[in-house]
C-alpha cells in the first residue's frame, strides 16, 4: 500500500514537471534563439544582440509600443478605480440581487474572447459611436480589466475586518474618509496588484485589439501578428522575448502585491 502511494507520487511529480516543461518550452526556445546569429533561426551560430538592436530602429514597433503603453495605462486606471469600487460594494451590500450583480463582474473572464471582441466592434460601430483606434481598444480592455480587478480586490477584502470601518465611522468619519484613511491604506497592495494585472492583460491582449482597432492603429501584439503572418524571423524572437520578460516582471510584481499580508487587519 505504501509502495503504491510512493510510486504514484513519483509519477505525479514527473507528470507535473513535464507539464511545466511543456508550458515553458516555447519561452525557452524564443529566448534562446533571440540571441542566435543565425537568420534562419534553428541552428545556433553564435551569440548576438543584433536583432534587439534592429528593434530599436523599427519605427513601426516603437510606435506600436507607445500605443500599447497608452492603452494599457488607460485601461489600468479605469479598471483600478471601477474594480475597487465594485469589490467594496459587493462585499458590503446585502440586497437580494447581489448574486446576479456579482456574476456580471465575473462574466467577462468566462466569456470567450472572440465573442466579446465582435460584440464590442459591433457596439462601437452601430450603437455607441466610438472612434476605432486607441479609444475603442482602451474601452474594450477596461471591460475585462474591471472584472479582473474586482476579483483580485475582492480576494484581498476577504480577510478585512469590517469593524475597522465601523470604528472609523463611529468616530466621525464620512464614508469617503473611511475609505481614504482606513480601507485604502490597508488594501492598497491588492488594488495595485489588480491594477498591474489589468495592465499586463491589456498590454498583451491580441484578440480583442484585433477586432476593435481602427485602420492605422496598431498595438504591439497586432504588429507582432502581422510580422508573424509574413514569416518567422529572428527580430520576432527578440521582440517576443522582450515582451515576455516585461510582462512576466509586471505580473510577478502583481502577484507579490496580491499576496502581501494586510498589516494585522485580520479578524480575530
Amino acid at each position: 500500500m505504501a509502495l503504491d502511494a510512493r510510486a504514484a507520487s513519483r509519477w505525479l511529480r514527473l507528470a507535473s514537471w513535464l507539464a511545466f516543461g511543456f508550458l515553458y518550452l516555447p519561452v525557452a526556445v524564443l529566448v534562446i534563439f533571440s540571441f542566435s546569429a543565425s537568420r534562419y533561426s534553428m541552428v545556433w551560430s553564435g551569440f548576438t544582440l543584433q536583432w534587439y538592436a534592429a528593434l530599436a530602429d523599427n519605427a513601426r514597433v516603437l510606435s506600436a509600443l507607445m500605443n500599447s503603453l497608452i492603452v494599457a495605462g488607460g485601461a489600468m486606471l479605469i479598471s483600478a478605480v471601477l474594480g475597487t469600487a465594485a469589490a467594496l460594494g459587493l462585499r458590503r451590500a446585502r440586497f437580494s440581487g447581489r448574486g446576479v450583480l456579482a456574476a456580471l463582474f465575473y462574466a467577462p473572464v468566462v466569456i470567450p474572447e472572440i465573442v466579446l471582441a465582435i460584440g464590442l466592434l459591433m457596439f462601437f460601430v452601430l450603437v455607441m459611436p466610438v472612434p476605432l483606434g486607441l479609444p475603442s481598444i482602451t474601452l474594450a480592455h477596461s471591460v475585462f480589466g474591471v472584472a479582473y480587478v474586482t476579483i483580485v480586490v475582492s480576494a484581498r477584502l476577504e480577510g478585512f475586518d469590517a469593524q475597522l470601518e465601523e470604528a472609523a465611522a463611529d468616530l466621525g468619519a464620512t464614508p469617503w474618509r473611511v475609505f481614504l484613511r482606513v480601507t485604502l491604506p490597508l488594501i492598497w497592495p491588492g488594488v495595485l496588484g489588480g491594477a498591474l494585472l489589468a495592465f499586463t492583460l491589456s498590454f498583451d491582449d491580441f484578440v480583442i485589439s484585433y477586432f476593435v482597432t481602427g485602420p492605422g492603429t496598431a498595438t504591439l501584439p497586432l504588429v507582432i501578428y502581422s510580422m508573424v503572418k509574413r514569416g518567422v524571423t529572428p527580430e520576432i524572437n527578440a521582440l517576443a522575448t522582450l515582451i515576455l520578460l516585461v510582462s512576466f516582471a509586471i505580473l510577478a510584481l502583481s502577484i507579490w502585491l496580491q499576496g502581501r499580508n494586510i498589516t494585522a487587519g485580520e479578524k480575530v
Partner: protein
Amino acid sequence: MSGHGSKPGTRAVGVLVPPAAWLTLLFLGPLGVIALISLMMPGAPVEWTIDGSAYQRLLDPIYLGVLWRSLSLAVMATVLCLVLGYPLAYYIARRPPRFRRVLFFLVLVPLWTNSLVLIYGWMVMLRPNGAFDQLLQGLGFGGGEPLTILYTPAAVILGLVYWYLPFMVYPLYASIEKLDFRLLEAARDLGAGGLAVLVRVLLPLTLPGIATGCLLVFVEALGAFVVPDLLGGAKSMMLGNLVQQRFLSVPQDWPMGAAAAMLMLALLLVGMLWASRVGGLRRGA
C-alpha cells in the same frame, strides 16, 4: 423598538453604481448587440431588417464542416487538458502553502503574458526544419524528410491544449484544494488500492472542478482563432476563423458571425447550468 435591518447596506449600493453601469454598457451592451445583429440581414455592414437567415447560413454544408471540426477539436483539446491538467492541479494542491502560490502563478503566466507570442514559439518549433525537426533528424528519426506537424490538426490540438490548460487547472485546483485529504487516507486505510481511491473517492469529490474546467476549456476552444490561424493553416479552419472572416474579410457577413457567437454563448449557458447541477449534486450528497 425592533430591529435587524442594516443601514450600511444601503450606503454601499452607491459605490456599485459606476462599475455596474460601466459593465452594463460595455459588456451587456455588446452581448445584446450580438443577439440583435444575429437576426438582421447582412449589408454594409448590416441591413436593419429582421431576418434570421444568418443561422441558416451558419448551418450551410460548407460551414458544417467547420462546425464539426471545431466541435471535435475542442472536445479532444478538453480531454487532453483534463488528462494533463488534473495531475498538475493535484500536485500543486499538495505542495506546502508557500510553494502553492508560486507554482499556481507559474501555470497562469503563459496565459496572462503573451499567448500569441508563445503560439508563435510553437510555430518556430514545429515547422519543417524547425527546432523539433532538427532534433528528430539529429536523433535519426524522420528519414531525411522535413517534419510536417505544423498546419495539421495535431498542431492545432497541441496549441489549444497549450493555450487553454490554465482554464482547466484553475477550477480543478480550486476544487482539489478544498478537499479533505484525510478522506483519501481513510479510503486507503479501508483497503482501497490507488486506482480505486482515484475513481471512487477523488474524482467524484472533485467533480464540480472537473465539470467547470471542461466547460471552460470546451467553450473557449470553440472560439479559438489564433491557434488554428497560426498553427492550423487553411485546412484547419475553426469557428473562430470563420467569425474573423465574416467580420474582417470579404464577403462580410456580420449577422452570420453574430450567429456563430450566439451559438457559443448558448453552449456556454447550457454548459454552466449542467456544471452547476453537477456541483449541486455534490453538495447534496
